[in-house]
């Protein structure tokens, strides 16, 4: 509620700068991949987005377990923030997966194990969000969403494993070729940039969650 702290502003500028540099290098500086050509440049946004989605949902998992043990409202706020941001990153990942899939595989959507798992991840955390919006009582909402946060995440490895088996029984998995160093560096840079963006959005979203909690208390108090 107070004036935005300096560190937060700094984090925001840092994140923006890193993203600009990352995209610039990814698009204009680093040479295109020999085999795939320029479309491979989408890797510098697709892969980091997927990794951040996964990280966000892992944070939701950890916060959910913490909440179930300590029942501290702060963990619930962080979990809610991370889940919402995770959904944004997952949608971006899926869209980029399609943009990349069309030229390389000729179709917008294939049941590739990673894409499928990401889609299921999206369904799980859209469910998480819907549950939060339907539960009125703050304590129940926190407890129930923490439960879905734990079960939802525990499901991910099994989903990935079963989907991979499902696909590999039909088509061999694309073995990751050795990646050229400059491509790897660009990828790492973008991954760092995306992580900064995640951190910045988290700070903002957690504050919003606190505000919403306070509003709920005041509305009930004055009701």
């Amino acid at each position: 509620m107070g004036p935005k702290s300096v560190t937060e502003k700094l984090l925001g500028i840092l994140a923006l700068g890193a993203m600009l540099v990352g995209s610039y290098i990814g698009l204009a500086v680093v040479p295109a991949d020999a085999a795939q050509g320029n479309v491979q440049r989408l890797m510098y946004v697709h892969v980091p987005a997927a990794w951040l989605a996964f990280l966000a949902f892992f944070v939701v998992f950890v916060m959910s377990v913490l909440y179930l043990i300590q029942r501290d409202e702060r963990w619930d706020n962080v979990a809610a923030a991370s889940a919402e941001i995770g959904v944004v990153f997952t949608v971006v990942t899926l869209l980029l997966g399609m943009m990349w899939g069309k030229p390389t595989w000729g179709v917008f959507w294939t049941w590739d194990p990673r894409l499928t798992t990401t889609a299921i991840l999206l369904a799980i955390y859209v469910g998480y969000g819907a549950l939060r919006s339907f539960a009125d009582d703050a304590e129940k909402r926190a407890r129930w969403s923490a439960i879905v946060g734990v079960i939802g995440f525990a499901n991910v490895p099994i989903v990935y494993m079963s989907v991979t088996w499902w696909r590999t029984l039909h088509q061999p998995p694309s073995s990751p070729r050795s990646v050229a160093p400059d491509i790897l560096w660009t990828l790492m840079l973008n991954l760092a940039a995306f992580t900064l963006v995640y951190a910045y959005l988290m700070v903002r979203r957690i504050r919003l969650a606190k505000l919403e909690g306070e509003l709920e208390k005041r509305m009930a108090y004055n009701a």
Partner: protein
Amino acid sequence: MELEGLSKRFGWNWALRDASVRVEAGTTLCLVGPNGAGKTTLLKLVATLLRPSGGDAFVMGHSLSKDPDEIRQRTGFMTVRGFLYDDLSAAENLHFTMRMGGLKPRREVVGRVLERIGLDDVADNRMRTFSTGMRKRLALGQLLVRPIEVALLDEPYSGLDSQGMQLVDEVVSEFKAAGTTVLLASHQDGEAVREAEQTGILRKGRLEILPDSEPLSRHLSVGGPAGAPEVV
């Protein structure tokens, strides 16, 4: 049983605000007060169905917040509608209650209780066919099939004819003789209410224990099961 500042808050309004009272074993505390004053909330708290927002209660020495299961072992709770199943017969309902109480259901125990509550002739009829009065008697029967040390009765008289009310009074006096503590919430005047050693008035979540001298009738609606004027 001992309540120490027991409170319960839904959202932001206090359904019950630091209720404190001590009820000796084998005695009855009667709770009176308008609807929504917190009677049912208090009973649900003692029955461990609601978690206290503040304070605590000790039933037979067990703390409500620390070991609720110990309390559940010793408590019987008769709600307004009872925990009964329409598609089971009266006997089957009591069988289920015994099993859920961790007991091996025995036919003669169920038979005796059904006789006691005057439902032995309809023992095998499905509860769906019962009137509210009969359903109420069966709910009372649920308290008799399990050995309990604390009996919580929420509006036991509602829906009962005078004979039914008399049955409730008999059962309550049996509980007292057996050393069972009784917590009775009712806004209808009945013998058990008058016999209660302690009476508490509940208004807007506040519990106030009446000194014995004060006449009870001022707080009770007059007359039996017929429509009663709202309590003062």
